[in-house]
Protein backbone atom coordinates (compact mmCIF):
# COMPACT_ATOMS: atom_id res chain seq x y z
CA UNK A 1 0.00 0.00 0.00
CA UNK A 2 2.71 2.44 0.99
CA UNK A 3 4.84 1.48 -1.99
CA UNK A 4 1.94 2.02 -4.39
CA UNK A 5 1.26 5.42 -2.82
CA UNK A 6 4.93 6.29 -3.20
CA UNK A 7 4.84 5.39 -6.89
CA UNK A 8 1.68 7.48 -7.33
CA UNK A 9 3.32 10.45 -5.59
CA UNK A 10 6.44 10.18 -7.76
CA UNK A 11 4.41 9.99 -10.96
CA UNK A 12 2.37 13.04 -9.91
CA UNK A 13 5.49 15.04 -9.09
CA UNK A 14 7.27 14.14 -12.35
CA UNK A 15 4.19 14.93 -14.46
CA UNK A 16 3.73 18.26 -12.68
CA UNK A 17 7.36 19.24 -13.16
CA UNK A 18 7.32 18.37 -16.85
CA UNK A 19 4.11 20.33 -17.42
CA UNK A 20 5.50 23.34 -15.54
CA UNK A 21 8.67 23.30 -17.63
CA UNK A 22 6.60 22.95 -20.82
CA UNK A 23 4.47 25.97 -19.91
CA UNK A 24 7.48 28.13 -19.24
CA UNK A 25 9.23 26.91 -22.40
CA UNK A 26 6.15 27.75 -24.44
CA UNK A 27 6.31 31.29 -23.09
CA UNK A 28 9.71 31.60 -24.78
CA UNK A 29 9.04 29.49 -27.85
CA UNK A 30 5.71 30.77 -29.21
CA UNK A 31 5.70 33.66 -31.65
CA UNK A 32 2.39 35.47 -31.27
CA UNK A 33 1.18 37.26 -28.16
CA UNK A 34 -2.12 35.41 -27.96
CA UNK A 35 -0.29 32.09 -28.39
CA UNK A 36 2.04 33.09 -25.57
CA UNK A 37 -1.00 33.64 -23.39
CA UNK A 38 -1.99 30.03 -23.99
CA UNK A 39 1.20 28.34 -22.82
CA UNK A 40 1.43 29.21 -19.08
CA UNK A 41 -2.11 27.96 -18.39
CA UNK A 42 -0.71 24.44 -18.57
CA UNK A 43 1.80 25.29 -15.86
CA UNK A 44 -0.82 26.91 -13.67
CA UNK A 45 -3.42 24.13 -13.88
CA UNK A 46 -1.71 20.77 -14.28
CA UNK A 47 1.72 21.75 -12.93
CA UNK A 48 0.63 23.38 -9.69
CA UNK A 49 -2.44 21.10 -9.42
CA UNK A 50 -0.45 17.88 -9.41
CA UNK A 51 2.09 19.38 -7.01
CA UNK A 52 -0.72 20.29 -4.59
CA UNK A 53 -2.38 16.86 -4.90
CA UNK A 54 0.99 15.24 -4.23
CA UNK A 55 1.41 17.49 -1.20
CA UNK A 56 -2.00 16.48 0.17
CA UNK A 57 -1.30 12.77 -0.34
CA UNK A 58 2.12 13.14 1.25
CA UNK A 59 0.60 14.84 4.28
CA UNK A 60 -1.80 11.93 4.63
CA UNK A 61 0.98 9.38 4.14
CA UNK A 62 3.50 10.64 6.69
CA UNK A 63 0.79 11.12 9.27
CA UNK A 64 0.60 14.88 9.78
CA UNK A 65 -3.00 14.74 8.67
CA UNK A 66 -5.06 16.49 6.04
CA UNK A 67 -4.47 20.23 5.70
CA UNK A 68 -6.87 22.67 4.10
CA UNK A 69 -4.31 25.14 2.80
CA UNK A 70 -3.60 23.11 -0.34
CA UNK A 71 -7.30 22.96 -1.18
CA UNK A 72 -7.56 26.71 -0.70
CA UNK A 73 -4.52 27.41 -2.89
CA UNK A 74 -5.88 25.10 -5.61
CA UNK A 75 -9.35 26.68 -5.56
CA UNK A 76 -7.87 30.17 -5.61
CA UNK A 77 -5.51 29.45 -8.52
CA UNK A 78 -8.24 27.71 -10.54
CA UNK A 79 -10.65 30.59 -9.98
CA UNK A 80 -8.23 33.42 -10.67
CA UNK A 81 -6.36 32.00 -13.69
CA UNK A 82 -9.22 32.71 -16.20
CA UNK A 83 -9.63 36.25 -14.81
CA UNK A 84 -5.98 37.14 -15.31
CA UNK A 85 -6.02 35.54 -18.77
CA UNK A 86 -9.08 37.59 -19.68
CA UNK A 87 -7.46 40.82 -18.51
CA UNK A 88 -4.20 40.07 -20.34
CA UNK A 89 -6.01 39.28 -23.59
CA UNK A 90 -7.96 42.54 -23.23
CA UNK A 91 -4.66 44.39 -22.86
CA UNK A 92 -3.43 42.64 -26.02
CA UNK A 93 -6.57 43.58 -27.94
CA UNK A 94 -6.56 47.21 -26.85
CA UNK A 95 -2.90 47.71 -27.69
CA UNK A 96 -4.07 47.92 -31.36
CA UNK A 97 -1.34 45.56 -32.47
CA UNK A 98 -3.69 43.34 -34.47
CA UNK A 99 -5.70 45.66 -36.68
CA UNK A 100 -7.13 43.69 -39.60
CA UNK A 101 -5.63 40.41 -38.36
CA UNK A 102 -8.45 39.98 -35.83
CA UNK A 103 -10.92 37.25 -36.76
CA UNK A 104 -14.42 38.40 -37.75
CA UNK A 105 -17.20 38.14 -35.20
CA UNK A 106 -19.75 36.73 -37.67
CA UNK A 107 -22.43 39.25 -36.67
CA UNK A 108 -22.87 42.90 -37.55
CA UNK A 109 -21.28 44.39 -34.45
CA UNK A 110 -17.64 44.41 -33.41
CA UNK A 111 -16.05 42.53 -30.51
CA UNK A 112 -17.70 43.41 -27.22
CA UNK A 113 -14.55 44.76 -25.64
CA UNK A 114 -14.48 47.56 -28.24
CA UNK A 115 -18.05 48.64 -27.46
CA UNK A 116 -18.49 52.33 -26.77
CA UNK A 117 -22.06 52.08 -25.50
CA UNK A 118 -21.17 50.39 -22.21
CA UNK A 119 -19.89 53.65 -20.81
CA UNK A 120 -23.49 54.78 -20.34
CA UNK A 121 -23.76 52.48 -17.37
CA UNK A 122 -21.43 54.63 -15.31
CA UNK A 123 -23.79 57.48 -14.18
CA UNK A 124 -25.45 55.17 -11.68
CA UNK A 125 -22.52 55.89 -9.38
CA UNK A 126 -22.73 58.94 -7.08
CA UNK A 127 -20.70 61.82 -8.37
CA UNK A 128 -17.56 62.75 -6.52
CA UNK A 129 -18.16 66.49 -5.99
CA UNK A 130 -21.68 66.20 -4.50
Amino acid at each position, binding site marked *: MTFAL*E*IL*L*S*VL*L*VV*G*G*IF*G*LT*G*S*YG*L*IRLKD*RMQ*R*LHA*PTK*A*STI*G*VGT*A*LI*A*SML*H*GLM*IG*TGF*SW*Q*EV*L*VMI*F*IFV*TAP*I*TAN*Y*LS*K*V*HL*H*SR*HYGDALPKTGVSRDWATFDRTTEGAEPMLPSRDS
Partner: protein
Amino acid sequence: MITYALGLAMVCFGLGLILNLWRLAIGPTVADRVLALDTMVVNVIAIIVLFGIQTGQGINFEAAMLFALTGFVGTVAFCKYLLRGSVIE
Protein backbone atom coordinates in the same frame (compact mmCIF):
# COMPACT_ATOMS: atom_id res chain seq x y z
CA MET B 1 12.02 7.39 -4.79
CA ILE B 2 10.02 10.44 -3.75
CA THR B 3 13.29 12.26 -3.14
CA TYR B 4 14.38 11.88 -6.77
CA ALA B 5 10.96 12.85 -8.12
CA LEU B 6 10.92 15.88 -5.83
CA GLY B 7 14.37 16.92 -7.03
CA LEU B 8 13.36 16.52 -10.66
CA ALA B 9 10.19 18.57 -10.17
CA MET B 10 12.08 21.33 -8.36
CA VAL B 11 14.71 21.47 -11.11
CA CYS B 12 11.94 21.67 -13.75
CA PHE B 13 10.18 24.56 -12.01
CA GLY B 14 13.51 26.30 -11.42
CA LEU B 15 14.37 26.07 -15.11
CA GLY B 16 10.91 27.44 -15.82
CA LEU B 17 11.68 30.41 -13.58
CA ILE B 18 14.87 31.11 -15.55
CA LEU B 19 12.94 30.94 -18.84
CA ASN B 20 10.32 33.33 -17.42
CA LEU B 21 13.07 35.70 -16.37
CA TRP B 22 14.37 35.62 -19.94
CA ARG B 23 10.91 36.51 -21.28
CA LEU B 24 10.69 39.24 -18.65
CA ALA B 25 13.95 40.69 -19.93
CA ILE B 26 13.35 40.49 -23.69
CA GLY B 27 9.55 40.90 -23.74
CA PRO B 28 8.62 43.29 -26.55
CA THR B 29 5.66 44.90 -24.79
CA VAL B 30 4.59 45.55 -21.22
CA ALA B 31 1.81 42.95 -21.48
CA ASP B 32 4.40 40.25 -22.17
CA ARG B 33 6.28 41.24 -19.05
CA VAL B 34 3.11 41.14 -16.97
CA LEU B 35 2.38 37.66 -18.31
CA ALA B 36 5.93 36.55 -17.50
CA LEU B 37 5.55 37.91 -13.95
CA ASP B 38 2.25 36.06 -13.52
CA THR B 39 3.87 32.80 -14.64
CA MET B 40 6.75 33.45 -12.25
CA VAL B 41 4.28 33.72 -9.37
CA VAL B 42 2.73 30.37 -10.37
CA ASN B 43 6.15 28.72 -10.57
CA VAL B 44 7.19 30.13 -7.20
CA ILE B 45 3.98 28.77 -5.63
CA ALA B 46 4.83 25.34 -7.02
CA ILE B 47 8.40 25.55 -5.68
CA ILE B 48 7.15 26.58 -2.22
CA VAL B 49 4.72 23.64 -2.18
CA LEU B 50 7.47 21.22 -3.22
CA PHE B 51 9.72 22.64 -0.51
CA GLY B 52 6.90 22.07 1.95
CA ILE B 53 6.74 18.43 0.89
CA GLN B 54 10.51 18.15 1.34
CA THR B 55 10.63 19.62 4.83
CA GLY B 56 7.29 18.24 6.00
CA GLN B 57 6.26 21.48 7.71
CA GLY B 58 2.85 23.08 7.24
CA ILE B 59 4.00 26.70 7.48
CA ASN B 60 5.05 26.74 3.81
CA PHE B 61 1.50 26.32 2.53
CA GLU B 62 0.40 29.55 4.16
CA ALA B 63 3.26 31.29 2.36
CA ALA B 64 2.06 29.73 -0.90
CA MET B 65 -1.47 30.98 -0.24
CA LEU B 66 -0.22 34.51 0.44
CA PHE B 67 1.79 34.39 -2.77
CA ALA B 68 -1.29 33.32 -4.74
CA LEU B 69 -3.36 36.19 -3.32
CA THR B 70 -0.80 38.94 -3.88
CA GLY B 71 0.16 37.66 -7.33
CA PHE B 72 -3.44 37.74 -8.54
CA VAL B 73 -4.10 41.21 -7.15
CA GLY B 74 -0.85 42.54 -8.63
CA THR B 75 -1.55 41.15 -12.10
CA VAL B 76 -5.12 42.45 -12.19
CA ALA B 77 -4.04 45.87 -10.94
CA PHE B 78 -1.34 46.11 -13.59
CA CYS B 79 -3.73 45.09 -16.39
CA LYS B 80 -6.36 47.54 -15.12
CA TYR B 81 -3.78 50.29 -15.15
CA LEU B 82 -2.74 49.44 -18.71
CA LEU B 83 -6.36 49.32 -19.87
CA ARG B 84 -7.90 52.33 -18.14
CA GLY B 85 -5.03 54.49 -16.92
CA SER B 86 -5.92 54.10 -13.25
CA VAL B 87 -6.35 51.15 -10.92
CA ILE B 88 -9.44 52.29 -8.96
CA GLU B 89 -11.74 54.70 -10.76
